[in-house]
């Protein structure tokens, strides 16, 4: 029995979340099932053979001109067709915007359960167990599957992609039927995000600002530090609700869930709803003038101090480090 993995592409480019999901499938394969088979819905082959380097034995291409854009109904048809043909032990998705939209549709069609946004997977006695945060990250649940295939989506940046091997995957075409013209929901365009800004869910480094910054005009402090660290800017809800930053910047329970290598929280108190979005970050640094702020309970390292003094000094120190190595 195989493991099927949804291979995500956008604008004809494979996304790194795909490497993470394939690598995890390859790790589970000896205990759960092999081969590892990818299924990609795209307008044309985005270079699927290269996915062999991340553990895919075979990748199926479901091609349709409509798939130049995200097409939820079409992607569902493609993945369901692959699942019905292969009868995999498990199907994995990235818990990306597309994956979280697609996986439940596939699960409903197949009549099976799905564990969303998982942070750990294990094969126990040949069966998949999925661990995922609940209650805003205040607890985790481990879930077992009563029907086959087991289905799970994987939180981006939590599962490490393997170092690419020299292998290549066999690319075959997937039989499926879908009439894009008959679809009643159609993506007609994209609003550009802020000029090339890397999305928070994909960033290795995030510098977030909170109400402690006092006003939108002071976010240049956050932007400068983010630039020096090669990272992206995030924000607390208080700041977004005040209109200082767009909603796309919000980290937390009603914003984005992020798991970067480094998360710097500046002038953020660390309310439970904020922690829900960032506590799976690998290293957390807090700068806050209140030494009792709850953010220090989750931070690995902290400085108690005024952001208006500490942040420029930190930015300067990082820049110096970058210049001198």
């Amino acid at each position, binding site marked *: 029995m195989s493991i099927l993995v949804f291979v995500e592409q956008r604008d004809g480019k494979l996304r790194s979340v795909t490497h993470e999901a394939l690598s995890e499938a390859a790790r589970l394969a000896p205990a759960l099932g092999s081969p590892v088979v990818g299924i990609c819905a795209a307008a044309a082959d985005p270079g699927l053979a290269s996915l062999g380097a991340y553990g895919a034995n075979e990748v199926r291409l479901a091609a349709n001109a409509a798939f130049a854009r995200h097409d*939820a*109904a079409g992607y569902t048809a493609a993945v369901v067709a692959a699942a019905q043909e292969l009868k995999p032990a498990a199907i994995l998705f990235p818990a990306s*915007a597309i994956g*979280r*939209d*697609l996986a*439940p*549709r596939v*699960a*409903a*069609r197949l*009549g099976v*359960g799905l*564990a969303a946004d998982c942070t750990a997977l294990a094969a126990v006695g040949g069966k998949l167990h999925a*661990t*995922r945060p*609940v*209650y805003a*990250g*205040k*607890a*985790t*649940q481990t*879930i*077992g*599957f*009563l029907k086959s295939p087991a289905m799970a989506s994987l939180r981006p940046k939590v599962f490490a992609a393997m170092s690419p091997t020299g292998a290549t995957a066999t690319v075959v075409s997937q039989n499926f039927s879908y009439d894009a013209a008959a*679809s*009643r*929901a*159609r*993506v007609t365009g*994209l609003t550009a995000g802020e000029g090339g*800004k*890397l999305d928070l869910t994909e960033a290795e*480094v995030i510098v977030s600002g909170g109400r402690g910054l006092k006003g939108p005009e002071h976010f240049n402090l956050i932007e400068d530090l983010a630039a020096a*660290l090669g990272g992206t800017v995030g924000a607390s809800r208080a700041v977004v609700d005040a209109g200082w930053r767009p909603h*796309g910047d*919000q980290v937390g*329970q*009603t914003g984005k869930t992020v798991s970067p*290598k*480094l998360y710097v929280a500046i002038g953020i108190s660390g309310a*439970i709803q904020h922690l829900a979005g960032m506590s799976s970050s*690998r*290293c*957390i640094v807090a700068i806050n003038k209140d030494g009792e702020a709850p953010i*220090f*309970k989750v931070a*690995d*390292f*902290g*400085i*108690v*101090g005024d952001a208006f*003094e*500490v942040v420029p*000094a*930190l930015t300067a120190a990082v820049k110096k*480090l970058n210049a001198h190595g």
Partner: protein
Amino acid sequence: MLQVVCIKQVADTETRVKTGADGKTLDPNGVTWIMNPYDEFALEQALRVKEAAGAGEVVALSMGGAGVQTTLRNALAIGADRAIHLRLDGPQPDSLQVARALAAEIAPLNASIVWLGKQAVDDDQAQVGPMLAELIGAPCVTVVAKFELAGEKAMVEREIEGGREVVEVTLPAVFTADKGLNEPRYASLKGIMAAKKKPLEEKPAVPGDPNLEILSMQLPPPRAAGRIVGSGVEAVPELVRILREEAKVI
């Protein structure tokens, strides 16, 4: 135009989470129950659509034990016209069970729009909307941040990585609401009085067999005690050294 808003009653996000006696689920003692915050955006949008049309009906639908009726009364006080309570006692069903029970109720209603929150803040699965849409054979747009209706067509925007997708949808359809879609209103005193007279119908839920089982619930291991490196600007060099040499993140 008939709109259905699916509403879940959840533990308040400030709840101190303790594992119940079964080792698998939340200990309900001392929990305050609220309307799932994302469902507030869904309900608000349904009311706005009805107000813009000058006619129509908004039905609030929820599944759960007897306590769920408090949240449904709140939905009626905010402005829903009537409510349906699918009664289900016992452990929380999985998402597909919920979607099946809701679908069985919704399918015969011929609603133009079914609204849900993008996810429930207790289990954060974000599944019931798209599952329900599949079961009733309707198109679905998840994580909706902007909504405009023109006749039978909706122009919506959904949040994706680094921007928003613009989606054109022909009704009937299912939408799941994100924060930012609108500013939800509160129940007024007049609304609360009116809600007492609005119909709230109770029926048994039909969720079918479970698809998942919860094996255990764990409280996460506390993160290793953080280290306050120091205070003020003087602490900066040491922080930079730690991030580079110990944490190896810069």
